[in-house]
Structure formats: C-alpha cells, structure tokens
C-alpha cells in the first residue's frame, strides 16, 4: 500500500518520458549578465519529452583588471521540468512558462600577475543549483527566461594553498534567445 504513491510517480514519469513533446523543440540562448563581466555564455536546449528538457552550454570570461588578468572557461548544464508547458502571458505552449531546474556547472579560472607575467594560480568551481524560473515567449520566437536559484558551490585551488571549500548561496539567472 505504501508503495502505491511511488508506483504512481514512476508510471507518471514514464508516460511523460514516452510522450512526444508538443511545441517547438529547440532553444538557443545567451546570458546578458555574463557580458557585464567581460564574459559570454551560449547554450542549447532540447525539448526531450512532454515536460522535460535538457540544456548544455559553454561560457567564458576575462574578469580580472588592473594588476591581474584572468581567464575562466565554464561548462553549464541543466535539466528542466516544465510545470504548465504554457507561457501565461503569450499563450505559447511547449518549453514555456514556469519550470523547476537542476543545474550543474563547472568552471576553471586561471590568474596571471601582469607586471611580471607570473602565473598566480588556477582554481575550479563546481556548482549545483536548484532553480525556479519562467520562460516568456514573444512572437512565438524570442524567449526571455529569468530564474532564481539555491546554489551549492565547491571550490578547489589547484596548487592546494587554500583548502577545498563548500558553501551555499542564492543566485539570479537570465537568458535571452530564440525557440525554434
């Protein structure tokens, strides 16, 4: 008896996974916040099943200034569960409206001291996020997707001078792109 809800959940997910998704099945977007830190993120999203989509992307930034320069290379990924599959503002159906996401990102940052061209070090940041967002679709083509997240961040210094670190924080996310 206690297994009934679990069984129902499995059947529901299985039926959702089998169902052919309705609506546009692809999205390509970038993230405007990255531009402010001399960075860029480009990502592709695929509508996999009736409520599910998967997203992957690449990014980078060169944030350090003055006496230092830095390079960061990022890999972003996210799985999304579309709650209503409908943008309440435009009525667009498919990968639209509110969603819950589970994201995993990894980034490697390398820093150099400019006056002597000395390599200062490199570090990894691995981030897991739970997101709640909403996709607005305009003219059946352009999308704007703001989201808020709870993030767990793991940090590693390649030289080992600083101990590995794990902490939680909150995040804000915004992507702009096209659905097709």
């Amino acid at each position, binding site marked *: 008896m206690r297994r009934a809800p679990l069984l129902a959940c499995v059947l529901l997910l299985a039926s959702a996974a089998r169902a052919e998704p309705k609506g546009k099945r692809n999205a390509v977007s970038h*993230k*405007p*916040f*990255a531009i*402010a*830190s*001399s*960075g*860029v*993120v480009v990502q592709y999203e695929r509508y996999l099943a009736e409520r599910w989509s998967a997203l992957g992307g690449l*990014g*980078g*930034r060169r*944030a*350090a*200034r*003055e*006496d*230092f320069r830095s390079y960061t290379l*990022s890999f*972003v990924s996210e799985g999304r569960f579309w709650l209503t599959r409908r943008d309440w503002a435009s009525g667009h159906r498919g990968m639209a409206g509110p969603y819950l996401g589970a*994201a995993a*990102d990894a*980034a490697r*940052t390398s*820093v150099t*001291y400019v006056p002597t061209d000395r390599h*200062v*070090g*490199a*570090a*990894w*940041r*691995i*981030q897991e*996020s739970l997101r709640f967002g909403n996709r607005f679709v305009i003219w059946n083509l352009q999308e704007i997707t703001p989201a808020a*997240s709870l*993030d767990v*961040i*793991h*940090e*590693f*210094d*390649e*030289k*080992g*001078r*600083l*101990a*590995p*670190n*794990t*902490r939680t*924080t*909150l*995040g*804000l*996310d*915004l*992507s702009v792109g096209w659905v097709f």
Partner: protein
Amino acid sequence: MWPRFGLALASTLVLGCGAPTEIEDVSYDSRYGDSTKLDLYLPDESGPQPAIMLIHGGAWRWGDKRHFDNAARRFARSGYVAASINYRLVPGGEFPNAPRDTACALAFLQQNADEYGIDPKRIAVMGYSAGGHLASLLGVAYDTPSLAPDCGWGRPERPAAVIPGAGAHDLRERADAEWIQDFMGGTLGQLPEEYEQASPIAQIDAGEPPYLLVSGGGDWIGAPEQSRWMRDALRAAGNEADELGLAGGGHLLQPGADPGELELEVLTETPEAWLVIADFLARQIGEP
C-alpha cells in the same frame, strides 16, 4: 597538478574537510559587550601560525563577525589562524571609535599570540566594504596617536599585510553620502580634519605594509576608483601595493561558475580573488 586536484576533490566529496576549532565571542575589550568580541578559527596545525584578522562590512552601521564565517573557516582549514571581529557600530561607533576598536583587536591578537598559536609578526588584516575602509586605515594609521586605542592592550604593531575589499579610501571624495556623514558624525564642512584623519589615502607614509586592494567594476557602493587612487598613492610613497579589479563585480553580486548567473557573494570570495589573496598571503606572511 591533477593528483593534487584529485586529492582535494576526494577530501571534500568523500572524506569531508576537517573543521577548524572555533572559539566564539572572545572579548578584546570588555567595556563594550558584544560589540568588541571576536571569533577565532584555529587550524589543526600547532605552533605559531600566520593569522588573518577579518573586519566585516555594513556601512559602519550593520553587520556582524559571522559574515566572514565562510572565509574564516577556509583560511583556518588552510592553516591560517583567522579572527573575525566585531567593532562598535553607528550609533556609538562613530569615528574614531570603530577604527580604535580595530586597532585594539589587532593589539589583542598580537599580545595574546602565544595563547592562540599565532605568530604576532605575521598577522594580515582583511576587510570588506566598511571593513575594507577600516582595514585600510589600520594599515596606514596603526601608529597614529589620535587613533590609538584606549583599551588595555596598548597600541598595535604594524600589520604584516592589508587586504581591503570594496572599501573607501578617501572619505572626503564621498562626503555627500549619508552613511559616511553618519559614521563621521557630521559633514565635511563641519569636520574637515576628522575627514582627513579617517581617509587612509591621506595618511600614507613610506614604510607602510604591503596592500592588496580588491575592487569591482560594477560596484557603485565601493567606488572602485578609490582602490586605484589608494594603490597609486601607496606606490608613489614607495610602498608595495597591487590592485585586483573585477569587471562586472558588484558589491554583493558576482558572476558564478556559470558567468551568466549572479551569485550573492562578496568580491573577495570570487575565484579570482581567492587565488590572488592566497598568493599574496603566501608571499607576505608565508604559507602555514
């Protein structure tokens, strides 16, 4: 590189990180209660270790020593002794009270170094926002008579290194800001000498401790140009000073591992800053 990285990853994900010993609410001046307490984060390593005194932000009006929890724990796990301090806040902490408290806290750590396993000659001072200003002022004015603490620990020795994050260094240039007037207890017109004394950039001599200034290009509260002015003034007087500027770095929002996502965090806890601070500390106060 990779074996060490793998070890670090394993220690975090599988074994977990060794938690530092934490001693909370150590009073460095019993006259002001919780306002003049500090938390100590002690590493596993014994013997005299380099130390970092952390000064929180909050426009001299808000904030608490717990704000530096994450950084303090990471420093302690890395082998440094970390001390995160409270100081008197406005009202009550108006200039020169808050700077005197930070000087008293530094003197306390230097005088009690043996008890906490600190090497008193290797204590760096780091602060953020208002704490960045106080750290910067402590670095150049630790021996200024008008800022000398009147607590029982006497005047502090020179800190070994200073890391001001997103701090103001010339209060005269931001004298219109209400929070600065509240901290100063009046306007620039009313208190010109006090504004000069409270501005680290006006206190620079030769022989100051090395500075690492951290600023954010998108930080309209911290005014990143002030870090550049401070660096240039320190260098002009023959001192060692570097600045890490971060494009797009805000006062409390920074790009994350996904550069398109903004994280709620301070500039000094970005990957770039962690790397530069670790390198700066290793060079100035030595690796633990």
